[in-house]
């Protein structure tokens, strides 16, 4: 059978890949994709802990569903921001968004 650590390491790897995407990508849409990967890593952890530690309680599943809702909201607003920025500034490169830099 699969020990819990396998799932945790899988989630850690997915999280770090997502983090790399967030830090290294230029395109704002690609950065959001990295965030999605990180959220998925979190969900794997939540479900794995639910299954291994408290399979009879529902908190793990409920939290995972809430994460779905939150990530949907995040994507909706995030991509709307990207599209709006693109329409104003003709660019989706995150480094160019420096209006607030002093």
């Amino acid at each position, binding site marked *: *059978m*699969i*020990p*819990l*650590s396998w*799932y*945790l*390491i*899988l989630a*850690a*790897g*997915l*999280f*770090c*890949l*997502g983090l*790399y*995407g967030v*830090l*290294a*990508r*230029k*395109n704002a*849409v*690609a950065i959001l*994709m990295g965030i*999605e*990967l990180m959220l*998925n890593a979190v*969900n*794997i952890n939540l*479900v794995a802990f*639910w*299954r*291994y*530690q408290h*399979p*009879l309680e*529902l908190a793990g*599943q*409920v939290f995972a*569903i*809430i994460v*779905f*809702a*939150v*990530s949907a*909201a*995040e*994507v*909706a*607003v995030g*991509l*709307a921001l990207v*599209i*709006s920025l693109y*329409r104003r500034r*003709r660019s*989706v490169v995150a*480094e160019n968004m420096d209006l607030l830099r002093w």
Partner: protein
Amino acid sequence: MTPIQVLFILTSLSLLVSAFMVVTTRNLVRAALWLISSLFMVAVVFVLLDAGFLAVVQVVVYIGAIAILFIFAVMLTRKVMQDTGPQSNSQWWVAGLFSLLLFGGLSWIILGWGGAAQTVPRVTAGDLDNISDLGRALVDPAGYVVPFEVASVLLLAALIGAIVVAWDRN
């Protein structure tokens, strides 16, 4: 190696490879397709964890809706950002190093933790993946009714916010 372990390793390998392609592919529509592949693999992981409902929801929400939104955003913002040219910024190696270090640290912590080696507790099949319990808990005042209603308000706020931000009559 039991068959289930082989299945897990195959799934996690394809998950990690897809995720790697998501963050490195130059063509963003392809990156979105790799994202779909990795999200699907996460659904398979949920199935392995006996969370069938979450697996299906993962596919409905992520592949059916979020991934499509991503593909649209890529198509709508495409003109300036051609596929040629590097898609990573100048600090990509710092980011890579940092991610690797974080992964190493996390693995070290996980492997050193006492509970990491525990195996799946045996539960009668009826207790797992019990959707009706989940539904009851979601509207139970002693359960999760507040997150449930807050999620609805959050979604409403996201909808209105996104419309206000993206909508522009001209």
